[in-house]
């Protein structure tokens, strides 16, 4: 895996605009990455990312995925996302975000190898800093 100084592209898939605003603000504060993409629900994210792969373009380096979204929640997104044939997926780090404290969610996450880690909202600066350390 190539070691980078910073993350090029981060993707946030979350329907809560307030949360998205907040996390973007924190990312900018710590210079988390070059580019941030936001999708409001799983369906649109899946479509967009799917076309990226089809066009041969690079996928984002980091995906922060919220579990509780309308139309298509995080689990359904994951189920479909892992089916997309992609050579880029090893370079991709995916984090699950949720306010949920349901232990069964944590257990379920273990069934998806693509999931790096589970992060509980509220997301703090230290969480992001830690993430940076891990990825860079």
């Amino acid at each position: 895996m190539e070691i980078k100084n910073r993350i090029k592209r981060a993707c946030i898939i979350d329907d809560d605009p307030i949360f998205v605003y907040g996390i973007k603000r924190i990312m900018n504060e710590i210079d988390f990455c070059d580019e941030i993409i936001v999708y409001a629900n799983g369906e649109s994210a899946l479509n967009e990312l799917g076309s990226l792969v089809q066009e041969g373009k690079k996928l984002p380096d980091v995906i922060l995925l919220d579990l509780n979204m309308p139309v298509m929640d995080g689990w359904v997104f994951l189920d479909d996302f892992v089916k997309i044939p992609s050579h880029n997926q090893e370079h991709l780090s995916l984090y699950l975000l949720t306010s949920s404290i349901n232990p069964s969610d944590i257990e379920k996450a273990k069934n998806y190898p693509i999931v790096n880690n589970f992060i509980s909202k509220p997301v703090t600066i230290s969480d992001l800093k830690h993430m940076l350390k891990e990825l860079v």
Partner: protein
Amino acid sequence: MEYLFVVLENKTSVLNNLFTTDFIKTAPISVAILDKNLCFTSYSKIWLKEFNIKEKKIVGKYYYDVIPNTPERLKRVHQKALQGKSSNITAQRFIDLNGNIQWLKWKVDPWNDYEGNNAGIIIFAEDITATTRKKELLKKAENISKIGGWELDLATHQLHWTAATKKILEVANEYIPKTNEDINFYKEGEHREKIAKLIDNCINKGESYDEELLIITALGNELWVRTKGEAEFHKGRCVRIFGTFQDIDSEKKNELKYKETAERLKVATNAAKIGIWEFDIAKDISVWDEHMYKLYGIDKDGFDGSDAAWRSMIHPEDRERIRTEEKMVLNGEKDLNHTYRVVWPNGDIRHIQSSAKLLKDENGSPLKIIGTNWDITAIKEANLKYTEVAERLKIAANAAQIGIWEYDFTNDSHVWNDQVYELHGVKKEEFAGGYEAWRSLIHPEDQEKTKIEEEIVMKGEKDLDHNYKVVWPNGNIRHIHAKAKLLRDEKGNPFKMIGTNWDITEIKEAEEELRKLLKVTNEQNNNLLNFAHIVSHNLRSHSANLSMLSSFLVNEENEEERKNLIKMIDEASSGLNETVQHLNQVVHVKTNVNGNMAPINLYTALKNVEKNISTLFKKKEVICEIDVPKSHNLKAVPAYLDSILLNLFTNSVKYSAPNRQPQIMVSSKIEGNKVVVAFSDNGQGIDLDRHGRKIFGMYKTFHGNEDAKGIGLFITKNQIEAMNGKIEVESTVNVGTTFNLYFDAN
């Protein structure tokens, strides 16, 4: 005889003529004189008798004619005598004319005439048959009885033993004992000392003796002998002692063995405390051993041995019965074997077992009864206790409704107590028993599993412990629990099964209730947990946002940005508020049902809601068909019913298909005690494969609709379930959706 012979020899010539007179004829001995030709010249009458000669006149007759059986040896002796040689034969066996055996003693001498010339021979004969025979018999008797004789001549100090004695002592027949040698044959120690003393007494005091002692034979064998001795006195002094000597070895040994056996018997009866008694019927006397007294609790002097005395010790209540049984014994019908109580002098009562045999005399009349007694008080008490316990068990089993049963493999039979019949719903008189008959009572569903359990038990892996259902003749189904133990014989084959049964129907039914309750509780718990998670999630989302925004606000200096942040704070706090309200609603539904249920007419309720929503219907050009019988009434909380119907109507409008006119149809039917309301529309439909599980979940939305909070159906479901109903959905994407609602009918 010798005296006579001397006389004859001297006075030959003178007496020659005399011999032809009656002198010889009447001689008291058996004598005959023959001439040189061995013809009789004279003879005594006794001679005729001796030889059993019938002829009266034998003078001049040839000897061998008269006595034809003369042995050759004798003839030679006669010849020799003619030549002058005497002969003296002490004993000769002789068979006379009649076939009798005779033993004769002969003396044959030459007979000279008065001139001294040989004139013939003179024969003296003595019949010693009797004595010889006696001797022979005595010898034979000696041999048979193994009694030998002995004699000690005190004058000559000669010790004489008969052949039998020598045989006993295992010395040679020719052996001649030395004086006092006999004593040394006795076993050293007390036996030898004894015989020495006895002989001494015999000689000195004339005391006869008769003693059984041990000897060591010449060959070293130990032998028991009976030695008798007596003395013969002459002029105050002992001249000889004599007696018999008998081999009693086998008899003695038998005697000793008998004594040993008797001793053992004594020990045994002692240990077993068996009393032995004998009753002489004629004399009316019983003889008791020491144990008998103990059994009856009396001293030896306390019992005179009479029948009456014994009978008085028997318990009064048992006397009659004993008499009856004794009669049967005396009649020879059976041996005595019975029990009875005796009363001791101190008042104690003991149970005695008596066993006896009747002895008869040669004529067959009762002579004696010999028998045994022993104390069975302990056994009797144990038996009583056992009976008591068995009774108690019966009562307990009855009270506890426990069935106790026994199955005998060898003859396929059952022994059931009353409860087992009750448990299986059969009557004692009607149930044949046997394995198949019992099996026919078992519920078909449990036939298999009971067979399997039995197999395991027969293999010896465990005791029987299972439950099964039985079907009573009247159709009732009862649950029975069975526990049993398998008993095997010495070869390891099953021969009996003993077990218990009890009814667990109520328990089983309670279990079933409990299980259902548990299921419901579990479901409800899960719901609650889910609910808690959902709520906490939503609360957390909003509160997390609030804290995040306010921390930004604190550090924000840009006025534009501050306005933005404040607006977002406002949004977040509204969201929080709304969540709390939803929470309230749901909690309210969950807790507030029972008191508010009322009978409601479905048609009326539907029409009402339709009216309230008429503006929306008009706007959206909704066609609404209500095809509900006016007779259908249901039990519901009015507010909830309204809320449910409203929610479904508005959903149908919200999710109507964009390219067609919304159509809603409501119908109802009765199913059992439920009213089933079908609510159909022709809207967008829901992909149940993808969303089926979540459709009634909280905050779950699928269509990206702006208005969709995802809470409507959640509340609807809670409301209908709170009223003991349920809601189901069928849907096809782009065709339409149908909700089926189940209400309690009124």
